[in-house]
């Protein structure tokens, strides 16, 4: 049913339709509205049978999900940012144990400096953990991906993380078609675990494995991820057959057929990029967009195919590997290796810095002109950075750089002046 609804609410209602049996939650912005809504449904009895557990940390949240999943229950939690990092040991463990937990990641920057706004640093920090990572472009897709995520996770015994941009999606109120129970039940059969803690058939789960088999165990995990490259599009196709709506899949192409320059990105920024591409098309530039929905496993072949016709690739991402550059850009470069594309890496939108259509238009224009360097930080204030570098060179005790930068950019001075006036 079409509703005007907050993204988090849409996720909560869709997760509830997936009949989770154990939901554990620890509050962290911007994921809180999701678990608050599910908690209320469990308490009211509208979501049953389901246990909702307020845990004492994200580490406990993922650990409770591990215990529940190993006992054969459909388990769900949600987190963001610091929360994901706090649970990271258990995140790896869930994947290593092959437990099909589904988690929403409301993407948010990682401190320090502490910052609650959106970027993708959190998701990138766990890209090697063994989870399937799906990125939603819209709230509709975020909701739909959760149904597909449970199906995928349970078929393959691999945990799935649905990444949606914090605030930009989680707190945006917009039109979302919430599926009905019968439709979700058609798409998502009951969970049949491969391994379960059952007194009638006792097994040991999580015992030590030495060098004699560890590499094989890890390689099996890799193969299950490769299986996901086949199942992700099939499940998206099943979803479309049942609901009439295209959602999910590996990659999504926009105006790429004749594109010479293609921008590659993850998540909600794709909408703005598409608008910018439309405008650049009006001035005759042959540009297009490839959105990557399935980031792990990385759909190298699909990406290569989507980019085949382009002479230039611009990978725009809301995260980077400090001391190196783009993370997604590296994966894309590996995928198209040997195809003789020019590849440009753009880091944008860190800590919630708005990625404006105007900036993207300029960026695409520069790329088309051949003026884009190998690595760009979009809308970076180089003057502020240079002045702080100069202060650091001049004075040993130059103080916290974050504060100095804010003073330099006028934010602190303005606030102080306002207080004093």
């Amino acid at each position, binding site marked *: 049913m079409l509703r005007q609804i907050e993204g988090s609410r849409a996720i909560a209602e869709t997760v509830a339709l997936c009949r989770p049996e154990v939901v554990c939650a620890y509050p962290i912005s911007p994921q809180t509205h999701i678990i608050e809504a599910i908690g209320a449904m469990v308490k009211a009895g509208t979501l049953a049978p389901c246990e909702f557990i307020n845990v004492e940390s994200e580490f406990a949240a993922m650990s*409770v999900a591990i215990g529940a999943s190993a*006992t054969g229950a459909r388990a769900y939690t949600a987190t963001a940012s610091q929360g994901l990092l706090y649970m990271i040991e258990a995140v790896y463990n869930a994947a290593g144990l092959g437990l099909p937990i589904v988690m929403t990641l409301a993407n948010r920057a990682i401190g320090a400096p502490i910052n609650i706004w959106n970027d993708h640093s959190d998701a990138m920090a766990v890209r090697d953990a063994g989870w399937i990572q799906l990125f939603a472009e819209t709230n509709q897709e975020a909701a739909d991906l959760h149904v597909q995520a449970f199906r995928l996770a349970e078929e393959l015994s691999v945990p799935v993380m649905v990444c949606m941009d914090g605030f930009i999606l989680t707190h945006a109120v917009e039109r979302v078609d919430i599926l009905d129970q019968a439709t979700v039940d058609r798409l998502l059969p009951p969970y049949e675990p491969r391994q379960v803690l059952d007194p009638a058939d006792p097994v040991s789960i999580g015992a030590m494995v030495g060098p004699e088999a560890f590499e094989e165990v890890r390689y099996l995990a890799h193969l299950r991820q490769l299986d996901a490259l086949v199942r992700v599009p099939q499940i998206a196709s099943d979803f479309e057959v049942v609901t009439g709506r295209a959602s999910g899949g590996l990659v999504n192409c926009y105006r790429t057929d004749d594109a010479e320059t293609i921008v590659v990105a993850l998540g909600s920024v794709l909408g703005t990029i598409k608008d910018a591409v439309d405008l650049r098309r009006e001035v005759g530039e042959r540009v297009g967009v490839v959105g990557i929905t399935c980031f792990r496993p990385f759909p190298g072949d699909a990406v290569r195919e989507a980019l085949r016709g382009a002479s230039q690739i611009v990978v725009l991402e809301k995260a980077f590997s400090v001391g190196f550059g783009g993370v997604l850009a590296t994966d894309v470069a590996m995928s198209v290796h040997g195809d003789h594309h020019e590849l440009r890496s753009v880091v944008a939108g860190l800590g919630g810095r708005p990625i404006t259509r105007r900036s993207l238009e300029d960026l695409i224009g520069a790329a088309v002109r051949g003026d884009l360097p190998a690595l760009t930080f979009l809308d970076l204030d180089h003057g502020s950075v240079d002045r702080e570098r100069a202060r650091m060179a001049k004075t040993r005790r130059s103080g916290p750089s974050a504060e100095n930068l804010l003073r330099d950019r006028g934010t602190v001075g303005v606030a102080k002046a306002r207080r004093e006036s």
Partner: protein
Amino acid sequence: MTTQPVHFYQVGSFAVGNRLLRDEQRTVQSRADRTNSIDSGHRACQGCGEALGARYALDAAMRSSGGQIVAVNATGCLEVFSTPYPETSWRIPWLHSLFGNAPAVATGVAAALRAKGRGDVRVVAQAGDGGTVDIGFGCLSGMFERNDDVLFICYDNEGYMNTGVQRSAATPPAARTATTDVVGPEPGNVFGQGKDLPRLAMAHDIAFVATATVADLHDLEEKVERAMELHGARYLHVLVPCPLGWGSASNETIHLARLAQETGLFPVFEAEHGVVTHAKRIRRRVPVQDYLSLQRRYAHLFGAHPRPDVVERIQAMADANIERYGLLDVSDEEVSV
């Protein structure tokens, strides 16, 4: 025909042999239908107190639950010596996740069982002292506070023995570990630190908190049975001497556990909803020196450069425990001191 009178206590230890007891008083281990939850063939050291404690505790839990338990294990000696695939010793459903999360994993198991209507299946979580008082404490306190239906058992050998005998918050003062070496003016672990987990557990007002040692296995089994009669969070803290970490002879494990209790250093008691309901009286009080001198981790307190001042401080700790829990009847004191 020569006859020999049967003394009730034949070994001078107050230990009661099963053959002297009525059937219903005998231990679970003496029964033909014991479950062998942790089976023979594991890799524990000779004289391992933890292997003994876990065997008695889990078989007692199995008996109490009609064989319907799921066990969750923290990383540590018990996890390592019992399992390397494919040679698991566990004949019960058993899950190991991480070092610090066993209480939360157990919460998840209990929640799943509740959601699935399997109230007949009970959850036991177990960890060493490191996994309980240090790295697992956040999750443990959360599990206690939520009153999740889990019996958590800490097998306390007073240090990180699996990693090579390092100090934990359960390591007693003056004890040598690899990270509290016997060097400097105050060799061994320092005084005035450490975490008293049973009292912290009691502060959560949970249904049942008890301590036990592997010297009195009847008592250990009874406490497990009592814990299994109750629901909600329950905590059992079992002292399990470690020949490797304590530097003791492997045939002294039971003796040392008994001395720990009989000196007052390890008070054996039980509490319900935060109130101590029973404390095991010291039957034959011994000075702490008798306990310490059997362990190489305290060797620096004796020998060529003895430290009677340090022994005295440890004795004061034992005396404080005796006072706090009323471990000594006045009449007993006259006999033993």
